[in-house]
């Protein structure tokens, strides 16, 4: 693998030599730049990692994935002994970043920092890739989802909301996102289990969605707990249920599980988004092992644990087969759920995704 690196670099260097001969008067400063550039790529060929890594974040600056990725990287850097240069490459719900990392060199220097989205690319026809094409270095955390309602709404529980929706179909406004987003998927889940009929209004994500809820432009929204917890705590919105089989306690406010009135949710929960780090599948085994160890240790640090807790997420810190099993299960549950709700373009069966 070290040879490969050298081969890709040398021709450039020789090319420059030719340029130098031709032009005779290459400035000293330019050479310094060039040499230092080549240096960082080839010197100290013994042992991975010998130069800084590149972390590709599949969502833009300021989002949930960006936050988790930028919080884990500084915890891992001292363990790896190298910097991880974090770069946002948003677009196509992460399909562009996924494609980019997949077409980069298999040397373990390019990591994909992402969320759950690639598991749905197949059924939504966004890309042929999924996490099957990558090695899960670490699945850092998963988020919890709560269903929150505007304080002006009369409902005190999820059941009252569903009953109200049944009484006036299509009148209640539900905050949502584009296909694949957390509010979208949970909305479809609720539709499948309770059969209610509400009007979804898609926003750009959890944040804009909860903003619309606060302003009264939608009546309720299923969102990531991290986006809603502070508003629940301040009493500005009310939490009707958590998408889990266990209740949730937010500073004394008890949120009942979604299965309380509707046991039908049982086979789907707990459901939520997740965040993690991936590298290409054919990265050399020793490099993968180093990455796995470093991220395991970094995710175990107090600082990162505190961060995950403040985001109201649940730490996972799993890798390898355990992570692959988790990813497979998530994909199977979610794609079939969307398929049954009529929201997929390609059947999961055609992609070889087994039924849950």
């Amino acid at each position: 693998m070290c040879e490969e690196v050298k081969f890709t670099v040398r021709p450039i260097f020789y090319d420059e030599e030719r340029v130098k001969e031709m032009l005779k008067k290459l400035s000293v400063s330019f050479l310094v730049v060039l040499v230092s550039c080549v240096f960082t790529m080839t010197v100290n060929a013994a042992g991975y990692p010998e130069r800084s890594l590149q972390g590709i974040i599949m969502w833009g600056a300021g989002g949930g994935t960006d936050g988790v990725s930028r919080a884990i990287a500084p915890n891992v850097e001292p363990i790896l002994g190298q910097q991880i240069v974090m770069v946002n490459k948003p677009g196509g719900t992460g399909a562009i970043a996924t494609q980019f990392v997949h077409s980069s060199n298999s040397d373990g220097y390019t990591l994909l920092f992402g969320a759950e989205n690639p598991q749905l690319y197949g059924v939504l026809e966004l890309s042929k890739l999924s996490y099957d094409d990558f090695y899960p270095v670490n699945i850092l955390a998963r988020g919890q989802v709560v269903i929150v309602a505007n304080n002006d709404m009369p409902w005190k529980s999820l059941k009252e909301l569903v009953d109200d929706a049944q009484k006036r179909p299509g009148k209640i406004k539900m905050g949502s996102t584009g296909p694949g987003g957390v509010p979208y998927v949970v909305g479809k889940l609720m539709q499948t289990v309770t059969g209610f009929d509400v009007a979804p209004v898609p926003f750009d994500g959890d944040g804009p969605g909860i903003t619309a809820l606060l302003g009264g432009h939608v009546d309720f929204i299923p969102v990531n707990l991290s986006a809603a917890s502070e508003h629940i705590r301040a009493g500005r919105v009310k939490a009707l249920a958590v998408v889990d089989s266990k209740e949730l306690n937010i500073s004394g406010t008890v949120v009942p599980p979604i299965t309380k009135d509707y046991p039908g949710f049982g086979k789907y929960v707990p459901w939520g988004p997740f965040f993690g780090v991936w590298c290409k599948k054919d990265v050399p085994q020793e490099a993968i092992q180093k990455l796995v160890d470093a991220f395991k240790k970094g995710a175990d640090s107090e600082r990162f644990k505190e961060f995950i807790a403040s985001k109201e997420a649940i730490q996972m810190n799993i890798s390898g087969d355990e992570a692959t099993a988790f990813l497979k299960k998530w994909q199977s549950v979610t794609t079939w759920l969307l398929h049954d709700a009529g929201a997929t373009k390609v059947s999961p069966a055609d992609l070889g995704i087994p039924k849950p």
Partner: protein
Amino acid sequence: MSHEQAGTLRAGEYYFDLIMLLVSLVVLFLAYQISGFQLCAAGTFPLASSAVMVLSMLLSLRSSRIKRRAGTARGSEELKLVMESVFTRDVLVYACLAVLYILAIDLLHFLPTSFVFIALSIIYLKGSTPIKAIVISAGTLFSIYMIFQYFFQVLLP
């Protein structure tokens, strides 16, 4: 604005407008294919904006036609005028150089291609003597490298 009718037609302007009209019609067709004619769908806005493109271009063409009647250069004479005013040798050569440059970045590396590009440009545009051109090119690239890659860790292409 107020001097809409004032001023004469530029050489080639009429044909550029015609090309834009054709482009707009193609875009309108593509926009229609997104989701047909619906009040609220992914294709609604593309359809509306491309329709505005077609309409505004028709309006513009109408006023150009009126100006054309006033008598402007035609045929080979107009072509000659366009070459003199729009596609001058400098512009054609330089645009080709710039396009070649960005295509070369992908094949080679950013630093060598940019170095050659700046040096060649300065020599062609007679900005300076060849030797100075090389020094300036190296200096510019050195500062770009320092600012982007070193301080801000921004990747260079």
